């Protein structure tokens, strides 16, 4: 055995626990999802092969509507997170007194148990007694209580806002790190040439953080597409399906109605979309890393 062979063997020995674990708890269930999606698996014991019946049934229902809703929901949530997070990162980068404290204060939504943050929002959205409806009434914007989660239109945006709230700390800290990794001499050179603060931002900061923005958007897209806890705790996909995204739909069919086969078909659709996102993600990453070496 050569030295490099023994090194490879050692590397795989080190990797073995992780590989075996992921194979058992992620890869095998993933394969099983594909398999189940072609069966009529349910609570009963017998499982029959049904071909594409689950998929046909799914698309005969309101599934197309669910897909569109999921994309709209995800699009707005990711956009808000990116815009708010990047703006906040720029502000947090300014060297003003107290910046360290402000940076720490950004993080709590990300640190605390998600369910707890969501409960707090659930109360704030309460129409009769919650803060948002209450304050808006006190300052005269609303003339009567508005229960945000009781109507489809408002519930849709309410769940997005809570999702933004939970996701924005990560985006902010990541973008802040990206801004701080820009070499300082660039700014100093521009400053010496008399470039103003806004000009420096537009011509140095923005182009330099673009790769990080793309990366973060993609990561955020994947996480947001998978968002379950927020919608489930706030609305359970209601009212009247107005916040039923693909994940919620899958959960309701599979776990709520015990239709494992039909639920698996929905999960497969989610996997397909996620794979497409990932494909584009790696394409974009490759383009940027090639751009760096050129």
């Amino acid at each position, binding site marked *: 055995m050569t030295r490099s062979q023994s090194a490879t063997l050692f590397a795989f020995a080190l990797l073995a626990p992780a590989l075996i674990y992921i194979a058992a708890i992620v890869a095998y269930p993933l394969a099983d999802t594909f398999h189940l999606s072609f069966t009529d698996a349910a609570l009963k014991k017998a499982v029959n092969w049904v071909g594409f019946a689950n998929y046909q049934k799914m698309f005969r229902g309101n599934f197309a509507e669910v897909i569109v809703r999921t994309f709209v929901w995800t699009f707005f949530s990711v956009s808000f997170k990116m815009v708010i997070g990047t703006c906040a990162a720029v502000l947090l980068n300014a060297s003003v007194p107290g910046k360290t404290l402000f940076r720490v204060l950004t993080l709590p939504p990300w640190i605390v148990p998600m369910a707890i943050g969501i409960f707090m929002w659930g109360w704030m959205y309460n129409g009769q007694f919650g803060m948002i409806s209450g304050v808006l009434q006190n300052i005269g914007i609303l003339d009567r209580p508005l229960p945000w989660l009781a109507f489809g239109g408002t519930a849709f945006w309410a769940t997005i806002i809570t999702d933004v709230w939970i996701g924005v700390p990560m985006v902010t800290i990541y973008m802040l790190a990206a801004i701080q990794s820009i070499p300082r001499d660039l700014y100093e050179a521009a400053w010496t040439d008399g470039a103003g603060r806004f000009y420096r931002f537009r011509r140095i900061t923005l182009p330099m953080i673009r790769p990080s923005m793309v990366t973060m958007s993609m990561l955020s897209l994947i996480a947001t597409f998978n968002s379950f806890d927020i919608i489930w705790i706030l609305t359970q996909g209601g009212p009247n399906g107005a916040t039923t995204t693909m994940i919620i739909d899958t959960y309701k069919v599979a776990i709520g109605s015990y239709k494992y086969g039909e639920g698996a078909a929905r999960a497969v659709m989610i996997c397909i979309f996620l794979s497409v996102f*990932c494909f584009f993600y790696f394409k974009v990453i490759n383009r940027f890393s090639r751009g760096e070496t050129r």
Partner: protein
Amino acid sequence: MSERPMIDRYTWYETLGVYLGLLVFLSFVLAPFVEGFLVSLKPLEHLFSSPYRFWPEDGSFDAYFTMWEHVPLLGRYIVNSLFISTVITIVVVIIVVPAAYAFARFEFRGSGPLLGMFLAVNMFSGAVLLIPLYRLMRTLGLLNTYFAMIVPGVAFLIPTGIWLLRTYMLRIPRELEEAAWADGAGRLYTLRRVVLPIALPGIVVVAIATFIGAYAQQFIFALTFNSKSEYMPLAVGLFSFFGKERVVWNELMAASFAGILPVMIVFVFLQRYLVAGITAGAVKQ
């Protein structure tokens, strides 16, 4: 630095703009906590009264005492949450340390795609794999045990752990290991006696990040794979405050703050390392 360089000086309206912007942003971030805390101080009958009043007029910490009687298992839920997160963290660290070392130091065929595969795990949330995981847990007889929440929880925290620690290990100079090898030390001995001590700060960051992640994200598996109250983590146990007729909001919020406390303590003491470690792993690829 005693004096601020010229380039970092702001005019008064720039400073004002920065502070105003941060005020708006931090209000959004912190409003739920402020409101939640005030709710925990208000008596229930005041909570359910119009018009809305922001400030609690006869606020008290009563809810923080009555909640333990109203939901006797509350303490158990918090302990469960801590227990589940601790076990997840230990298992993740044990699995991640050798894997990250393999990715950081050995250039074997297929190491790139393999790392990509691990990261792809992050793509699939637990919700997508819920049905087969449920069947798997049932087959293994793990439903309604702590393991039903620990076993899948570990899987989804491994990839980020590998990524963070690999980045950290890449920055450790190789010379020490090479010196150990030259002295005839075995690979495993080198890993244990040379690499691990140097990588300890990175391992600590991974452990904190994992613990916080495990503590924050225990909902869907607990909701689906466990129905026994005595094993419930706080995220699911809090539903005990949802009564048939009304939600006991002040106690729910008080219990939430009790549940936030442990992770806040961890965070306040260690946030410096956590933020530095995570952003280093994120940006320098």
